[in-house]
């Protein structure tokens, strides 16, 4: 266990360094961006004298050397201050925390569905590698990879919100429903179906293929042959011996892919007008609201780092073969 705490300490330090790097990147992006907050204020105030501009600049610390500004910026972020939104005129942190639960609801539901169903599909396909079902998985994953996720979403809208109006076309809940009532939750569930299915489909395709490959690999290994030779039933061999090991790469990759999963969520939110981080980010970009968009970038990178850290640590706990220092 002592070994594990060393690993954990190393990984946590590494994660902290990554977050610091993202902060520095964000700071640089703010400075590369043409126009700063003062230009925006000056623009809003109309005819403004150069002296006043210099004064505002000093107020925001923009006249100081770059490294001092960076230090101030890091201190600000440590205090949980991600800046103030130009467009919404509220702290960026508030905007993000308002949008985050909706995105997490969408992403976690879709990811869990894809993981569970994908693993089941993969195991079934791996047990009979040349069956029709196995080929179906191959075709499904090919289609899942090739179809643009936003287009799949729009096709679902045309099919199930327009031709056969089973589901609402946009949003998260109907207006006028009291938040917290049972009807409200049912309505959210109703609104969730299409976005979740759209997002889950791409990952379902991916995980079916991954778990099929992983399972095929494990089923061909010596210890599975030994288990079979002992006369264990096929079910015990597949589900007790093989599946456990086959799950390791699946869980790892699921964790490491969180960054891509968030990207998919941005597009799906845009298609279904789902009020989450992606919709907020897009709005911020279209409104040229720099602090908000950079705040979201920083925040999502942080979520990804933390998610990776957790996967990494669980991975170390699950799999005794992984030792400190092995990096493949």
């Amino acid at each position, binding site marked *: 266990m002592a070994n594990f705490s060393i690993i954990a300490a190393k990984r946590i330090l590494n994660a902290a360094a*990554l977050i610091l790097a993202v902060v520095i990147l964000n700071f640089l992006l703010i400075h590369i961006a043409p126009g700063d907050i003062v230009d925006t204020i000056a623009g809003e105030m109309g005819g403004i004298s150069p002296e006043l501009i210099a004064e505002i600049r000093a107020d925001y610390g923009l006249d100081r050397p770059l490294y001092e500004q960076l230090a101030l910026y890091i201190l600000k972020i440590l205090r949980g201050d991600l800046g103030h939104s130009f467009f919404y005129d509220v702290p960026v942190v508030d905007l993000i925390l308002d949008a985050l639960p909706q995105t997490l609801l969408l992403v976690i539901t879709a990811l869990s569905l894809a993981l569970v169903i994908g693993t089941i599909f993969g195991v079934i396909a791996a047990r009979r590698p040349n069956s029709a079902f196995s080929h179906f998985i191959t075709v499904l994953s090919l289609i899942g990879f090739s179809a*643009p996720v936003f*287009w799949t979403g729009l096709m679902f809208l045309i099919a199930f919100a327009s031709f056969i109006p089973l589901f609402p076309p946009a949003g998260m809940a109907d207006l006028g429903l009291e938040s917290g009532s049972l009807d409200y939750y049912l309505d959210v569930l109703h609104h969730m179906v299409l976005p979740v299915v759209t997002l889950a489909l791409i990952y379902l395709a991916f995980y079916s293929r991954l778990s099929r490959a992983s399972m095929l690999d494990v089923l061909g290994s010596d210890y599975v042959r030994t288990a079979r030779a002992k006369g264990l039933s096929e079910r015990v061999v597949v589900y007790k011996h093989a599946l456990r090991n086959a799950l390791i790469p699946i869980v790892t990759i699921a964790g490491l892919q969180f960054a891509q999963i968030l990207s998919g969520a941005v*597009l799906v939110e845009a298609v279904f007008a789902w009020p989450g981080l992606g919709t907020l980010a897009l709005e911020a970009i279209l409104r040229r609201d720099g602090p908000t968009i950079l705040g979201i*970038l920083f925040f999502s990178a942080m979520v990804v780092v933390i998610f990776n850290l957790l996967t990494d640590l669980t991975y170390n706990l699950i799999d005794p073969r992984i030792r400190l220092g092995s990096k493949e």
Partner: protein
Amino acid sequence: MGHIDMTDQKSNQSQPASVTLEGAYEIPSIEHPLREAARMFARNKAALGGLILLVGILILTLVVPFFYTVDPFDLVWAPLSPPGTENVPFGTDYLGRDILAGIIHGGSATLAVGASAALLAVVIGLSVGSLAGYYGGWVDEVLMRITEFFQVLPTLLFAMVIVALFQPSVATVAFAIGVVSWTAVARLARSEFLRIRALDYVKAARSISSSNSRVIWYVILPNAMPPLVVQATLAVGGAILFEAGLSFLGLADPNVMSWGFMIGSSRDYLMDAWWTVTIPGVFIFLTVLAVSLIGDGLNDATNPKLRER
């Protein structure tokens, strides 16, 4: 459409795979690995279908524009005319622009961005990965930290920020996509270099004091190529989807017609005019499908482990 009549050719395809033995007592010549891979690829119906499909799409987007000269931004017919209307076989969008013209003229932007972004991703990824894998030690440590950093950035958000900071154009969009998609190539190149570096023929090359650059370029790289080519193909598919996503969100150059842009600009009308968003999406889908089929085929043809199956 080009690819429909081409499927006939595909079904006529039959490959007699024969190894030529010149005389009974001669040693059979060993086939060049590239030729062997080409033969394996040609035997794979799905991969060949993908290749034919891709050629069809390339002809459609690069050659056909010279013959179908309708400007995709021109208002040519009544808005929202369904497909099959006179003069506009694919119908028109909400402004009355010809969708067929958009498909034909919009493909080149998508393909150009996809190809150049993938090229950028491969160049960065290959440089980083090969140096890290070859030199190991602190070089590896530093380069892999940088790779890790790019891996935690949510790709689409970061690309959106880059495009928003610098005016959207074909070049900035390609740059943004390339910069966020090289990490997979780097990881693969690194592990291949690590593996091959330890093999005897590399030791042999070193023992005759070949320079580092010679070992990297002439000894290791050719042997690391097959999986990297497959990864590069995947990167092209990914970059095309990425470009489509950015254009769909309205973040690409608004003066350049592209398939993603067509979907994005027409999405408000999808309830009344399904064809405006469906048709361009089918073409994105077919293009990425063609590239993925080719990638799968290359993987099967170059990976001896998969060949036995």
